């Protein structure tokens, strides 16, 4: 089965569960590989969802379990700009829950902190269609965050130098 269809169907099943269990509708903001596939930014294999933790109540856990492989990413440990919601793209086809994928630029910047082989491969493919001005704005916002762990900010800054040289940003 096509990767996008498989991921989409998992989310649709999760939506059905939320509806049946009468769990209050909620939003999911996806990043990482699943967001790249669902947003049609990239076509590669992955079945795991990286979801930003929006302080969900535990009832939402009943729904998330249906996604199989997922991680709830802690905002304070993740290089995400506070304005990420303004650029996120809402996926069509959901009536009960709301599913968003982060913009390409937000996803690229979120990968800077690791910059391992897989990340570089993704960034190489994403960068040609990215807005570099927006990438710089996102980076500035992240560096201004007071709620971003210092240990992570330090790591981000180290990798940022490499990123800037490699991609002329």
């Amino acid at each position, binding site marked *: 089965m096509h990767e996008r269809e498989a991921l989409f169907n998992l989310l649709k099943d999760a939506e059905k569960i939320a509806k049946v269990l009468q769990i209050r509708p909620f939003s999911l903001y996806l990043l990482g590989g699943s967001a790249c596939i669902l947003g049609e930014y990239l076509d590669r294999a992955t079945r795991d969802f990286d979801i930003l933790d929006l302080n969900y109540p*535990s009832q939402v856990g009943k729904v998330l379990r249906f996604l199989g492989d997922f*991680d709830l990413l802690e905002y304070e440990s993740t290089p995400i700009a506070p304005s990420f919601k303004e650029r996120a793209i809402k996926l069509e086809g959901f009536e009960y829950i709301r599913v968003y994928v982060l913009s390409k630029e937000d996803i690229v910047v979120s990968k800077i902190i690791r910059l391992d082989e897989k990340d570089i491969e993704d960034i190489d493919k994403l960068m040609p269609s990215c807005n570099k001005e927006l990438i710089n704005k996102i980076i500035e916002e992240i560096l201004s965050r007071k709620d971003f762990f210092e*240990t992570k900010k330090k790591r981000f800054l180290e990798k940022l130098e490499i990123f800037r040289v490699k991609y002329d940003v």
Partner: protein
Amino acid sequence: MYRIFCESYYNYIKNFEDKGAKDEYRYKIAKVFELIVDPQKFYKEKSKNSETYQNLCDLLCYMKENIHRYPKFKAFLWTLESRQIEPVYCGKTPQNVLEDQAKLANMFLNLMYWE
């Protein structure tokens, strides 16, 4: 996953405490997670190089080495690193205990005790 891990830990521990079952093995092996859910306690125990601190360090090493078996450990260790709670090999904890603690941590991360 850090927030959910902490909430799950308290739910898990409460089960035993409510039943007055503090002598049970599954309660005792979970106590090491106290240092995860309370970073101040972690720093305090680290400064004393206590047995609990060494047990946690061994566990974090075990978790890091077993990310292939328990993929959720990767993102979780990332959040611990943010708090400067990092793996250091001490070699003081028996393998069977580490295995059981890792399984329990994985259950927390799979939302089994998030209720």
